[in-house]
Protein backbone atom coordinates (compact mmCIF):
# COMPACT_ATOMS: atom_id res chain seq x y z
CA UNK A 1 0.00 0.00 0.00
CA UNK A 2 1.45 3.32 -1.04
CA UNK A 3 -0.96 6.19 -1.05
CA UNK A 4 1.50 8.97 -0.35
CA UNK A 5 3.72 9.84 -3.27
CA UNK A 6 6.91 11.90 -3.39
CA UNK A 7 4.74 14.78 -4.59
CA UNK A 8 2.53 14.57 -1.47
CA UNK A 9 5.52 14.28 0.86
CA UNK A 10 7.21 17.30 -0.75
CA UNK A 11 4.57 19.45 1.00
CA UNK A 12 6.02 18.65 4.43
CA UNK A 13 7.43 21.83 5.93
CA UNK A 14 5.04 24.20 4.14
CA UNK A 15 2.99 26.70 6.16
CA UNK A 16 -0.36 28.41 5.67
CA UNK A 17 -0.59 32.20 5.67
CA UNK A 18 -0.67 33.56 9.27
CA UNK A 19 -4.18 34.02 10.68
CA UNK A 20 -4.91 36.80 13.18
CA UNK A 21 -7.67 36.33 15.77
CA UNK A 22 -9.01 38.82 18.32
CA UNK A 23 -10.19 36.95 21.42
CA UNK A 24 -13.42 38.20 22.95
CA UNK A 25 -14.83 37.51 26.40
CA UNK A 26 -18.08 36.42 24.82
CA UNK A 27 -16.36 33.80 22.64
CA UNK A 28 -14.62 32.41 25.73
CA UNK A 29 -17.94 32.35 27.60
CA UNK A 30 -19.64 30.48 24.73
CA UNK A 31 -16.87 27.90 24.64
CA UNK A 32 -16.85 27.53 28.43
CA UNK A 33 -20.64 27.02 28.60
CA UNK A 34 -20.69 24.61 25.66
CA UNK A 35 -17.99 22.45 27.23
CA UNK A 36 -19.55 22.63 30.74
CA UNK A 37 -16.47 24.06 32.39
CA UNK A 38 -16.54 24.19 36.19
CA UNK A 39 -13.97 26.89 37.03
CA UNK A 40 -15.32 30.41 37.46
CA UNK A 41 -12.45 32.11 35.59
CA UNK A 42 -13.48 30.18 32.46
CA UNK A 43 -17.25 30.64 32.85
CA UNK A 44 -16.81 34.39 33.39
CA UNK A 45 -14.57 34.61 30.34
CA UNK A 46 -11.66 36.07 32.34
CA UNK A 47 -9.42 33.32 30.97
CA UNK A 48 -9.81 30.83 28.13
CA UNK A 49 -9.90 27.09 28.93
CA UNK A 50 -6.76 25.45 27.53
CA UNK A 51 -8.62 23.68 24.70
CA UNK A 52 -10.30 26.93 23.56
CA UNK A 53 -7.72 27.10 20.76
CA UNK A 54 -9.28 24.15 18.91
CA UNK A 55 -10.21 25.50 15.44
CA UNK A 56 -9.68 29.06 16.67
CA UNK A 57 -7.58 29.74 13.57
CA UNK A 58 -9.76 27.67 11.26
CA UNK A 59 -11.65 29.11 8.32
CA UNK A 60 -14.97 30.83 9.16
CA UNK A 61 -16.98 29.06 6.46
CA UNK A 62 -20.54 29.71 5.29
CA UNK A 63 -22.81 27.06 3.78
CA UNK A 64 -21.57 27.78 0.26
CA UNK A 65 -17.95 27.06 1.26
CA UNK A 66 -18.60 23.49 2.39
CA UNK A 67 -18.21 20.08 0.85
CA UNK A 68 -21.02 17.50 1.08
CA UNK A 69 -19.65 16.24 4.43
CA UNK A 70 -19.77 19.74 5.92
CA UNK A 71 -16.02 20.31 5.92
CA UNK A 72 -14.48 23.29 4.19
CA UNK A 73 -13.78 22.79 0.48
CA UNK A 74 -10.16 23.54 1.29
CA UNK A 75 -10.06 21.04 4.21
CA UNK A 76 -7.73 18.75 2.34
CA UNK A 77 -5.44 21.39 0.94
CA UNK A 78 -4.59 23.44 4.06
CA UNK A 79 -0.82 23.30 4.42
CA UNK A 80 -0.70 20.29 2.23
CA UNK A 81 -1.63 18.46 -0.93
CA UNK A 82 -4.96 17.01 -2.00
CA UNK A 83 -4.85 13.47 -0.59
CA UNK A 84 -6.21 10.23 -2.09
CA UNK A 85 -8.37 9.73 1.05
CA UNK A 86 -10.59 12.61 2.11
CA UNK A 87 -12.87 11.59 4.98
CA UNK A 88 -11.41 13.12 8.08
CA UNK A 89 -11.37 12.18 11.76
CA UNK A 90 -9.76 13.94 14.70
CA UNK A 91 -6.69 12.04 15.86
CA UNK A 92 -5.46 13.97 18.87
CA UNK A 93 -3.47 16.94 20.02
CA UNK A 94 -0.29 17.84 21.87
CA UNK A 95 -0.29 21.29 23.52
CA UNK A 96 2.43 23.24 25.30
CA UNK A 97 1.25 26.28 27.21
CA UNK A 98 3.35 29.40 27.74
CA UNK A 99 0.74 31.78 29.10
CA UNK A 100 -3.08 31.88 29.46
CA UNK A 101 -5.27 33.39 26.72
CA UNK A 102 -7.44 36.28 27.90
CA UNK A 103 -10.09 38.58 26.39
CA UNK A 104 -8.56 41.28 24.21
CA UNK A 105 -5.59 39.15 23.17
CA UNK A 106 -4.71 39.50 19.51
CA UNK A 107 -3.17 36.20 18.50
CA UNK A 108 -1.40 35.09 15.35
CA UNK A 109 -1.53 31.45 14.37
CA UNK A 110 0.70 29.81 11.78
CA UNK A 111 0.04 26.22 10.75
CA UNK A 112 2.80 24.07 9.27
CA UNK A 113 2.53 20.56 7.87
CA UNK A 114 5.14 18.59 9.84
CA UNK A 115 4.46 14.93 9.11
CA UNK A 116 2.35 12.57 6.95
CA UNK A 117 2.37 8.80 7.11
CA UNK A 118 0.19 5.80 6.26
CA UNK A 119 -1.12 3.03 8.48
CA UNK A 120 -3.47 0.13 7.90
CA UNK A 121 -6.55 0.61 10.11
CA UNK A 122 -9.26 -1.87 11.06
CA UNK A 123 -11.43 -0.75 8.17
CA UNK A 124 -8.78 0.07 5.58
CA UNK A 125 -5.87 2.41 4.90
CA UNK A 126 -5.42 5.61 6.89
CA UNK A 127 -3.28 8.69 6.33
CA UNK A 128 -2.11 10.54 9.43
CA UNK A 129 -1.52 14.27 8.92
CA UNK A 130 0.30 16.15 11.67
CA UNK A 131 0.26 19.94 11.65
CA UNK A 132 2.01 22.27 14.05
CA UNK A 133 0.23 25.45 15.13
CA UNK A 134 2.42 28.17 16.59
CA UNK A 135 0.42 30.83 18.45
CA UNK A 136 2.12 34.12 19.23
CA UNK A 137 1.21 37.73 19.93
CA UNK A 138 1.95 40.50 17.41
CA UNK A 139 5.10 41.20 19.46
CA UNK A 140 6.28 37.64 18.91
CA UNK A 141 5.56 36.40 22.45
CA UNK A 142 4.99 32.64 22.32
CA UNK A 143 1.54 31.84 23.76
CA UNK A 144 1.00 28.19 22.88
CA UNK A 145 2.32 25.47 20.59
CA UNK A 146 0.15 22.68 19.29
CA UNK A 147 0.64 19.61 17.15
CA UNK A 148 -2.67 18.35 15.88
CA UNK A 149 -3.21 15.00 14.20
CA UNK A 150 -5.93 14.54 11.60
CA UNK A 151 -6.66 11.12 10.13
CA UNK A 152 -7.93 10.69 6.57
CA UNK A 153 -9.72 7.44 5.73
Amino acid at each position, binding site marked *: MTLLTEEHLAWIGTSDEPVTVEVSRRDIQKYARATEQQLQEYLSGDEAPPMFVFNLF*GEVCGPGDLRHDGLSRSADTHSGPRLPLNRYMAGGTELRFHRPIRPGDVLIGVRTLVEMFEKEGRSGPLIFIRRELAITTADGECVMEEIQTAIAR
Partner: protein
Amino acid sequence: MPVTLKSIKVGDELPRREHEASNVSLFLYNAAVWNPHRIHYDDVYAREQEGYSALVIDGPLQGDWLCQAVTNWLGGDGELLSFSYSNRLAAYLGETLTSGGRIAGVDPDSGRVELDLYIENETGEVTTPGRATVVLAP
Protein backbone atom coordinates in the same frame (compact mmCIF):
# COMPACT_ATOMS: atom_id res chain seq x y z
CA MET B 1 -7.26 22.03 50.51
CA PRO B 2 -4.79 23.48 47.98
CA VAL B 3 -3.16 21.02 45.59
CA THR B 4 0.57 21.09 46.40
CA LEU B 5 3.45 18.62 46.20
CA LYS B 6 2.84 17.82 49.89
CA SER B 7 -0.81 16.98 49.33
CA ILE B 8 -0.28 14.39 46.56
CA LYS B 9 1.59 11.15 45.83
CA VAL B 10 2.16 8.81 42.89
CA GLY B 11 -0.87 6.60 42.34
CA ASP B 12 -3.44 9.12 43.63
CA GLU B 13 -6.56 9.18 41.47
CA LEU B 14 -8.05 12.35 40.00
CA PRO B 15 -11.81 12.71 40.52
CA ARG B 16 -13.88 10.81 37.93
CA ARG B 17 -16.64 12.69 36.09
CA GLU B 18 -19.39 11.39 33.85
CA HIS B 19 -20.11 13.11 30.53
CA GLU B 20 -23.33 12.58 28.64
CA ALA B 21 -23.37 14.45 25.37
CA SER B 22 -26.78 15.34 23.93
CA ASN B 23 -27.89 16.73 20.56
CA VAL B 24 -28.01 20.11 22.25
CA SER B 25 -24.56 19.92 23.82
CA LEU B 26 -23.01 18.74 20.53
CA PHE B 27 -24.79 21.59 18.73
CA LEU B 28 -23.48 24.16 21.22
CA TYR B 29 -19.92 22.79 21.10
CA ASN B 30 -19.76 22.67 17.31
CA ALA B 31 -21.27 26.16 17.07
CA ALA B 32 -18.75 27.51 19.60
CA VAL B 33 -15.80 26.10 17.63
CA TRP B 34 -17.49 26.76 14.22
CA ASN B 35 -17.28 23.13 13.12
CA PRO B 36 -19.81 22.27 10.38
CA HIS B 37 -18.75 18.58 9.97
CA ARG B 38 -22.05 16.72 9.43
CA ILE B 39 -21.07 13.61 11.41
CA HIS B 40 -21.79 15.65 14.57
CA TYR B 41 -25.37 16.79 13.77
CA ASP B 42 -26.80 14.92 10.77
CA ASP B 43 -27.70 11.45 12.04
CA VAL B 44 -28.83 10.07 8.67
CA TYR B 45 -25.67 11.31 6.97
CA ALA B 46 -23.40 9.94 9.74
CA ARG B 47 -25.00 6.46 9.55
CA GLU B 48 -25.73 6.07 5.85
CA GLN B 49 -22.84 7.85 4.23
CA GLU B 50 -19.97 7.58 6.70
CA GLY B 51 -20.88 4.23 8.27
CA TYR B 52 -21.01 5.41 11.89
CA SER B 53 -23.52 3.87 14.29
CA ALA B 54 -24.81 7.28 15.51
CA LEU B 55 -23.76 10.93 15.74
CA VAL B 56 -20.06 11.15 16.62
CA ILE B 57 -18.95 12.91 19.80
CA ASP B 58 -16.16 15.26 18.69
CA GLY B 59 -12.66 14.04 19.48
CA PRO B 60 -11.56 17.52 20.64
CA LEU B 61 -14.62 17.74 22.93
CA GLN B 62 -13.42 14.56 24.61
CA GLY B 63 -10.00 16.21 24.71
CA ASP B 64 -11.54 19.17 26.51
CA TRP B 65 -13.23 16.90 29.06
CA LEU B 66 -9.87 15.23 29.63
CA CYS B 67 -8.22 18.62 30.12
CA GLN B 68 -10.96 19.56 32.57
CA ALA B 69 -10.09 16.47 34.64
CA VAL B 70 -6.80 18.30 35.24
CA THR B 71 -7.96 21.92 35.55
CA ASN B 72 -10.84 20.99 37.88
CA TRP B 73 -8.49 18.91 40.05
CA LEU B 74 -6.02 21.82 40.20
CA GLY B 75 -8.87 24.22 41.00
CA GLY B 76 -6.68 27.23 40.21
CA ASP B 77 -3.59 25.86 42.00
CA GLY B 78 -0.43 25.01 40.10
CA GLU B 79 0.13 25.50 36.39
CA LEU B 80 -0.63 23.32 33.39
CA LEU B 81 2.53 23.09 31.27
CA SER B 82 1.53 20.56 28.64
CA PHE B 83 -1.38 18.32 27.71
CA SER B 84 -1.89 15.70 25.03
CA TYR B 85 -4.51 13.17 24.04
CA SER B 86 -5.11 10.64 21.32
CA ASN B 87 -8.56 9.77 19.93
CA ARG B 88 -8.38 5.97 19.64
CA LEU B 89 -12.03 4.87 19.43
CA ALA B 90 -15.10 6.67 18.16
CA ALA B 91 -17.66 7.64 20.80
CA TYR B 92 -21.32 8.08 19.94
CA LEU B 93 -24.26 10.11 21.09
CA GLY B 94 -26.07 8.14 23.79
CA GLU B 95 -22.90 6.77 25.35
CA THR B 96 -21.96 7.85 28.85
CA LEU B 97 -18.24 8.60 28.95
CA THR B 98 -16.18 8.98 32.11
CA SER B 99 -13.05 11.10 32.48
CA GLY B 100 -10.37 10.51 35.08
CA GLY B 101 -6.69 10.07 35.69
CA ARG B 102 -3.93 9.25 38.12
CA ILE B 103 -0.63 10.72 39.25
CA ALA B 104 2.07 8.86 37.34
CA GLY B 105 5.17 10.69 38.53
CA VAL B 106 6.38 13.45 40.82
CA ASP B 107 9.70 15.31 40.62
CA PRO B 108 10.10 17.09 43.97
CA ASP B 109 13.03 19.20 42.72
CA SER B 110 11.24 20.83 39.80
CA GLY B 111 7.72 20.50 41.24
CA ARG B 112 6.64 18.78 38.04
CA VAL B 113 3.89 16.21 38.25
CA GLU B 114 3.02 13.79 35.41
CA LEU B 115 -0.58 12.69 35.03
CA ASP B 116 -2.01 9.76 33.07
CA LEU B 117 -5.53 10.55 31.87
CA TYR B 118 -8.36 8.64 30.25
CA ILE B 119 -11.83 8.88 28.81
CA GLU B 120 -13.54 5.51 28.97
CA ASN B 121 -16.87 4.30 27.63
CA GLU B 122 -19.53 2.28 29.42
CA THR B 123 -17.74 -0.99 28.75
CA GLY B 124 -14.53 0.34 30.27
CA GLU B 125 -12.70 0.73 26.95
CA VAL B 126 -10.46 3.79 26.84
CA THR B 127 -11.60 5.92 23.90
CA THR B 128 -9.12 8.72 24.56
CA PRO B 129 -5.94 8.34 26.61
CA GLY B 130 -4.00 11.46 27.54
CA ARG B 131 -1.10 12.86 29.52
CA ALA B 132 -0.47 16.16 31.23
CA THR B 133 2.41 17.82 33.03
CA VAL B 134 1.66 20.33 35.77
CA VAL B 135 3.91 22.19 38.16
CA LEU B 136 2.85 22.49 41.80
CA ALA B 137 4.04 24.60 44.70
CA PRO B 138 5.91 22.69 47.48
